[in-house]
């Protein structure tokens, strides 16, 4: 699956909000077809990292090189780049005044100047794949959260991106809708689409990732395979983070929850 060709190179990336450093010199290389899952505690800079990659956040230092092109160059034509870098947001952000289909066709027709027939054929293909062709004339308000997010994924895919960025795309969904969205992403991963995924779904991360990037305090703490990271994390910081997702110990007689209760 890994053809090895470098798609994206990030060198010493620095991003500050006001005076606070969010990314402190982050370096990362992504190859063609790789699925990177970025995890870490909230505020560690994982969403900021994705947003820097398609120019939604201006960076303060370092370099981002996408397919040989320096995105940190102030002359960057972001409209061109964004057609090749698909982005899916936590809160879907479908355009509420357009139907599902119109949401999907807008980019290909207006930005990429494709004919309506060509754009429609592609939309039909992708909507069928996410089981929503029948709902193409629905407005976003008429769709469930999971359906909205699947339309949002198709909207990004319709541009034929070379890399997809997923920013906590299941964080706003009810549990039963999380699955339908994750299945779509897993499917895309198996087809060899290059992806950067920020998520809190650990089981999903483990299943879909080629590489796990554990971010904390604006830098990469661990960069390893899912098996190594989840079974045998190299750092204490990662172990502590992973423990948050384990509930097995709570009900032991001397578990931390009981202690907390006694203290009350």
């Amino acid at each position: 699956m890994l053809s090895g060709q470098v798609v994206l190179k990030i060198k010493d990336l620095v991003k500050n909000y006001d005076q606070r450093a969010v990314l402190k010199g982050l370096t990362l290389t992504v190859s063609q077809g790789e699925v990177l899952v970025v995890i870490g505690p909230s505020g560690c800079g994982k969403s900021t990292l994705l947003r820097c990659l398609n120019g939604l956040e201006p960076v303060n230092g370092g370099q981002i090189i996408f397919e040989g092109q320096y995105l940190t160059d102030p002359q960057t034509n972001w409209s061109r780049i964004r057609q090749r870098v698909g982005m899916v947001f936590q809160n879907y952000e479908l355009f509420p005044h357009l139907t599902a289909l119109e949401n999907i066709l807008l980019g290909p027709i207006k930005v990429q100047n494709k004919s309506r027939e060509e754009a429609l054929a592609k939309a039909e293909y992708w909507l069928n794949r996410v089981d929503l062709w029948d709902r193409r004339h629905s407005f976003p308000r008429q769709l469930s959260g999971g359906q909205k997010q699947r339309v949002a994924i198709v909207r990004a895919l319709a541009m034929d991106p070379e890399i997809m960025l997923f920013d906590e795309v299941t964080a706003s969904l009810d549990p039963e809708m999380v699955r339908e969205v994750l299945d779509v992403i897993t499917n895309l991963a198996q087809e060899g689409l290059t992806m950067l995924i920020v998520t809190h779904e650990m089981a999903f991360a483990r299943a879909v990732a080629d590489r796990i990037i554990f971010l904390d305090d604006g830098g990469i703490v661990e960069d390893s395979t899912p098996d190594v990271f989840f079974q045998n994390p190299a750092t204490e910081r990662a172990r502590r983070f992973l423990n948050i997702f384990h509930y097995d110990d709570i009900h032991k007689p001397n578990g931390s929850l009981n202690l907390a209760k006694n203290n009350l």
Partner: protein
Amino acid sequence: MDLDFILAKGPIFLAAAQLTVTVAFFGILLSAVVGLLCAVVKFYRWPVAHRLVSAYIELARNTPLMVQLFFLYFGLPRLGFIWEGQTCAILGLTFLGGGYMAEAFRGGLSAVGKDQVEAGLSIGLNRFQLLRYVIVPQALAVSLPAISATTIFLMKETSVFSIVALPDLMYVAKDLLKEGHSSETNTLLVASYLAVILPISLIFAWLERRLRFAGFGS
């Protein structure tokens, strides 16, 4: 009530109503264009332009239309700009209306979230396309009640055009009042304004209802 008088003078009011509608149509249309441009400039906070726009909006909204018309009709000719009454009326209405429309549109634009802007940028839309396909359509729906109120307000403001010698509804009514028949003339005047403005109110009410049902649900 002298029905013969009303029937005899009806055509005069019809012609005056046509003039009122024509001037109002162009004035309000241009107001909307000026207002939208001003609102966009303020929305993007373009460095110098947005201060100029703010100054214009304050000037337009805080001076009476009659004073603005005086300036256009009697003041500017001294500087060498001579316009006929109808042009003055349209320009005056645009100057006044542009300020109100700018505020009406601004409310709608500020209701469109930053996230929608980012979603639009993410599929590669440029600044103009973002406005055209994402921001303005959503803003229009939110602004519609304010746009409707401004349109009706501007329709009624046309009644001061008689000071630039434009034979509009108010002008012909004043003329007829000199000959007596005040109750007939007043009836014609009220009926004419109602006939012109009421349909516009109803159309906007219908539009608002439709858009509320379409109500985006966000």
